[in-house]
């Protein structure tokens, strides 16, 4: 078992190009352990790409990401062991049951006593009574809860969530918020991309806003996250209109 751990993630001038399209353009910021950070921005602004870069699955075209003092390419599997990633596409096998999906993941991550770990995860996802059913028959919300537990099964230090509130009912949303707060208190660094600004406002320590692959500063103030985000987008839109004229 690796002893590698980190308290800080540093994103330095990270750019990512797909051919001529720039998904990320010279993005820099720091993240500290225990923080809950929201990635905000319109569709196509680079949020998922940035999560992919932080997860080490997407290599930056230029710039670097350091976990503590180390680069991801140096750490490899030792770093991946500390990352939990909930993708928007959930990463589940629909033909397998909820238990089989979690069991596969638990064994892949080398968890000791996988059956008890899986039982606890099923209980947290409120899926114990449907554990043996194939995931293909689950609603989006149930799959979302299962996928969240799958991504947290190995007790990661860096939790990356892409649209984690999609398809969740009020109870599940509130449980997820409590879970994120608990993880944060335990020292996890949580980064999630979302469009649910009202929900995000309840749980975020700070927000990182992306627009067309670049960092955009959220206006200071005491208004709600939604109001400040709208102020930023409106200001940018009027600037764009003036430039076009």
């Amino acid at each position: 078992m690796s002893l590698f751990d980190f308290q800080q993630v540093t994103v330095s001038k990270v750019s990512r190009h797909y051919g001529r399209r720039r998904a990320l353009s010279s993005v820099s910021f720091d993240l500290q352990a225990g923080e809950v950070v929201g990635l905000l921005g319109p569709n196509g602004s680079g949020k998922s790409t940035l999560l992919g870069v932080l997860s080490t699955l997407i290599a930056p075209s230029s710039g670097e990401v350091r976990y503590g003092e180390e680069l991801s390419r140096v750490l490899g599997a030792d770093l991946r062991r500390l990352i939990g990633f909930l993708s928007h596409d959930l990463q589940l096998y629909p033909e397998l049951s909820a238990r089989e999906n979690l069991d596969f993941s638990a064994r892949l991550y080398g968890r000791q006593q996988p059956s008890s770990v899986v039982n606890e995860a099923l209980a947290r996802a409120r899926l114990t009574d449907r554990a043996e059913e194939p995931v293909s028959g689950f609603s989006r919300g149930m799959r979302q809860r299962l996928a969240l537990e799958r991504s947290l099964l190995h007790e990661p230090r860096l939790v990356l969530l892409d649209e984690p509130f999609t398809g969740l009912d009020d109870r599940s949303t509130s449980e997820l918020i409590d879970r994120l707060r608990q993880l944060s208190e335990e020292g996890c660094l949580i980064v999630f991309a979302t469009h649910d600004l009202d929900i995000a406002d309840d749980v975020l320590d700070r927000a990182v806003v992306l627009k067309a692959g670049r960092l955009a500063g959220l206006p200071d103030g005491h208004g709600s996250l939604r109001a400040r985000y709208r102020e930023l987008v409106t200001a940018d839109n009027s600037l764009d209109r003036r430039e076009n004229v």
Partner: protein
Amino acid sequence: MSEFFRIAWLVTRKDIRVESRSREMLYTTTFFAASCVLVFSFAFVRSGRPVEGAEAGIIWVALAYAGQLALGRAFERELHQDALRGLLLAPVERAAIFVGKLLGIMLLMGVVETVVVFFVAVFFSTAFFDYGLLFISLLVAGTIGFGCVGALFAAMLARSQSRTVLLPVLLYPITVPVLIAGVNGTLSLIQPEPNLDLARFWLALIAFFDVVFMTLALWTFEPLMTE
């Protein structure tokens, strides 16, 4: 090393479980391969007498095309809910994931081979198992070579929108030596006067390709899978 094979077996077992529920690859590939043999049997059997040596070509052509179907689907399935990213994020040697996927594909091709050999043996009255060990070795070695290159390309192309077009374009030129060696090796076993030395030569050639392809695949899988 045991951890490497534990992960490979975990991935293979997952693939077997998924396939046992859907059976789409099994049905598609076996049905396709059996149809191939049936069509060829009409072309190559005249007045109850098969064209000499046609069986060897039929077996390897059926396997190559059925194998290509299986290869494409094996990695497409991982893309369905972005499960491939989940696999790649796991703190394991990525080469072990590749070997696990390859074993799953080889098991499926093994089932297809059994069906194809059975049908060819029935339609063409061919005694494949007079030199059973050599014949099975040729099939296993050929499956490893074909599956190894195919799995690597299928994984590489998994995110490409034109993967169904690109996979055969890349796969066949590189695996042609394996297929030619397979056909010639099989032919030297089923001809009226079997030539065992020649069969062993072709087997050794396939084994050489297997070693080269497997080394390249294990070496390049990790960098190729980073986006």
